[in-house]
């Protein structure tokens, strides 16, 4: 960086932040690990909020004809529950793990664009807060998470305008993150880390980033069109002027279906990391698992209209989309069977991460199978928009994505914080989750098949739906109890002194365990050179030529542990320096959002922030002197 001498002078009125510790350093950090932590903490809080909303839903529905909340409040609550869980919890929590782990698992010092990474985070959290501020500014979004117009374009309350703007803002965060992480995976791998030596978690990360990069622009357009309809009198979805509301449905689900794989593929990656470690066997059919992930990504773009079977697209379209939807079960099945084969004949240790992984797979299969019954188009004429669908997607989302994310928390907690979470509490948490989710979402299958529609704020006593609704409500509180146990676990663990007896507590297989817990700012003192899939494992174990038995290599004897080879040139490592420009540029976006709602002057102010932020950013070298 020759030019840095020239540039780093006293240019600009503000001094560049340099602190990397302390409260304010969090606002300027560009360290992927800190950003990952901030993603994790923020999205966990959103999970609690989204969960509280779910508890209100379940309390309202615990008995027929209840008036705990009004219809108007209920509609806001279920919409915000869906939006929160999907856009403010599962997506950013996956981003948290991707951020923290991708560089560590591929042997990089940071992501490709550290400041863009910080920008993504700030845009996400400000977008989330923007969305939530609607509660205090005239009402939260109330048109359902897929916000079908014309209902959502004609609704008089301000909520759905917040919906369009809020999702546009968080969408910008995800798009920026997607490009960044994709490039990181493609371009920042350690020496020897070929594509087919990458952990499956990284593979799934790559697929997810491409799904994001190609699906978010579509919903961006849809949201802009809806925003214009609501705010500037256009007629995109206005049937009185010849507009067609079905256009929204296509654009939304063109995004929406890839989105559900965006939600679940990270969990698939997590399962694929955890199972081999705790079965002490390599992943069965690594290539099949990687390719099935890619296949899911591709096919996932061709099934969107299965959310629209009852819209009247005609028998040709319904046939085509029914078939393509069924096909997607094939690559998913490949994954399930490969996971089972990974465990088979293994030496399975059921620590908490493994419990959540295996439990998650078991629950996901239920949701997947009900998904296949939706692809039976005529059957879906009966099922769609009932609690049967609600059951389906909570099994895949809660069973798949949430179990996966909690498995990841238990698994990588020692990596991130240098402390193990309590095992007994973890097991209680697990069983509460399994029991709770089956009690909650299992009966919803029956409710749906008995004709209970979704998004209803109440139901009559005479329809015979009371019993199973009550069971579901009890189950929801069991889940909540499980979450509380987890929080207790966090608090107890936080009180423990830092330090692991063994920096490799699970006898793991991948690169992130080759550095200290927590890792230093620069990740690796010596970036390892990779020779095989499961590099770390192969440095620890070798197979005995004669017996075929695994033999532990005595410490220090790893084939590549030749200091002269790897640690040759001892140069200083330049890490990217903190910067507050990403935050400045990010603040501009919600400002523009409020401006569109209230005043053009505020839009101007927001645009100014964005401009200043990016100018400052452009002029600032990524590594300060």
């Amino acid at each position: 960086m020759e030019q840095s001498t020239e540039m780093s002078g006293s240019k600009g009125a503000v001094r560049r932040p340099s602190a990397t510790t302390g409260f304010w350093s969090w606002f300027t950090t560009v360290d992927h690990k800190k950003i990952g932590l901030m993603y994790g903490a923020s999205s966990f809080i959103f999970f609690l909020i989204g969960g509280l909303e779910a508890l209100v839903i379940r309390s309202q529905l615990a008995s027929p004809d209840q008036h705990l909340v009004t219809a108007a409040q209920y509609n806001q609550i279920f919409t915000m529950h869906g939006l929160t869980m999907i856009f403010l919890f599962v997506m950013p929590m996956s981003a948290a793990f991707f951020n923290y782990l991708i560089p560590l698992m591929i042997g990089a010092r940071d992501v490709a664009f550290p400041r863009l990474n910080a920008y993504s985070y700030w845009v996400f959290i400000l977008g989330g807060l923007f969305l939530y501020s609607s509660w205090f500014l005239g009402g939260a979004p109330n048109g359902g998470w897929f916000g079908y117009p014309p209902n959502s374009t004609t609704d008089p309350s301000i909520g759905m305008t917040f919906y369009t703007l809020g999702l546009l803002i968080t969408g910008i965060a995800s798009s920026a993150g997607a490009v960044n992480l994709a490039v990181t995976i493609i371009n920042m791998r350690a020496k020897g880390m070929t594509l087919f030596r990458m952990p499956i978690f990284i593979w799934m990360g790559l697929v997810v980033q491409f799904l994001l990069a190609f699906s978010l622009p579509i919903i961006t357009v849809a949201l802009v069109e809806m925003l214009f309809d609501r705010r500037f009198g256009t007629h995109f979805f206005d049937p009185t002027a010849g507009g067609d509301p079905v256009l929204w449905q296509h654009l939304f689900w063109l995004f929406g279906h890839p989105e559900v794989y965006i939600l679940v593929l990270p969990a698939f990656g997590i399962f694929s990391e955890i199972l081999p470690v705790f079965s002490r066997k390599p992943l069965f059919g690594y290539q099949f698992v990687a390719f099935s992930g890619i296949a899911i990504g591709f096919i996932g773009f061709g099934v969107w209209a299965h959310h629209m079977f009852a819209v009247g697209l005609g028998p040709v379209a319904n046939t085509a989309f029914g078939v393509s939807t069924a096909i997607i079960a094939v690559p998913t099945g490949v994954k399930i069977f490969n996971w089972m084969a990974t465990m088979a004949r293994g030496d399975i240790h059921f620590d908490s991460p493994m419990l959540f992984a295996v439990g998650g797979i078991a629950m996901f299969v239920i949701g997947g199978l009900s998904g296949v019954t939706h692809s039976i188009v005529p059957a879906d004429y009966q099922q769609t928009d009932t609690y049967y669908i609600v059951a389906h997607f909570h099994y895949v989302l809660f069973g798949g994505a949430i179990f996966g994310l909690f498995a990841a928390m238990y698994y990588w907690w020692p990596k991130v914080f240098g402390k193990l979470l309590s095992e007994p509490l973890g097991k209680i948490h697990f069983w509460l989750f399994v029991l709770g989710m089956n009690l909650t979402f299992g009966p919803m299958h029956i409710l749906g098949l008995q004709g209970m529609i979704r998004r209803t704020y109440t139901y009559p006593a005479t329809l015979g739906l009371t019993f199973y609704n009550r069971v579901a409500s009890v189950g929801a509180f069991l889940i909540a109890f499980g979450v509380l146990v987890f929080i207790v676990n966090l608090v107890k663990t936080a009180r423990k002194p830092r330090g692991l007896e063994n920096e490799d507590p699970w006898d793991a297989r991948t690169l992130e365990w080759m550095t200290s817990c927590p890792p230093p700012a620069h990740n690796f003192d010596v970036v390892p050179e990779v020779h095989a899939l499961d590099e770390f494992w192969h440095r620890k174990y070798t197979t005995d030529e004669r017996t075929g038995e695994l033999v532990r290599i005595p410490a220090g004897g790893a084939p590549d542990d030749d200091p002269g080879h790897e640690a040759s040139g001892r140069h200083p490592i330049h890490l990217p320096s903190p910067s507050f420009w990403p935050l400045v540029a990010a603040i501009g976006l919600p400002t523009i959002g409020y401006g569109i709602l209230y005043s053009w002057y505020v839009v101007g102010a927001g645009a100014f922030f964005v401009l200043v932020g990016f100018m400052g950013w452009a002029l600032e070298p990524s590594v300060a002197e």
Partner: protein
Amino acid sequence: MADAGHAQTELQEIEDTHHGAHAGHPSVKEYIRIGLILGFFTCLEVAAKYANLASATLIVTLLGLAAVKFVLVVMYFMHLKFDDRRYARFFVMGLSLAITLFLIVLILFKVFLR
């Protein structure tokens, strides 16, 4: 999954550090020539518009000309022809996905039957 092996070599190419890079950029003269061709095609387009062609012929001509212009800019001005093929691969992925998906959407709306 049958051609997994093939796909793997395709993917493996992403590894390759040393192929197809920077095989000489076009000269300024060449740029200007492309620019002139582009201008000429634009004239053709406008001329076609006023040439009283049958509607179908006109549409096909116009789309054809636009496609040629598009490709020329991408290949020469954006250097895809000379640059590493992997850039092209990513771009084409997005472009072809867009074309396929939105064609399907328009077909679902029976736009081409109107």
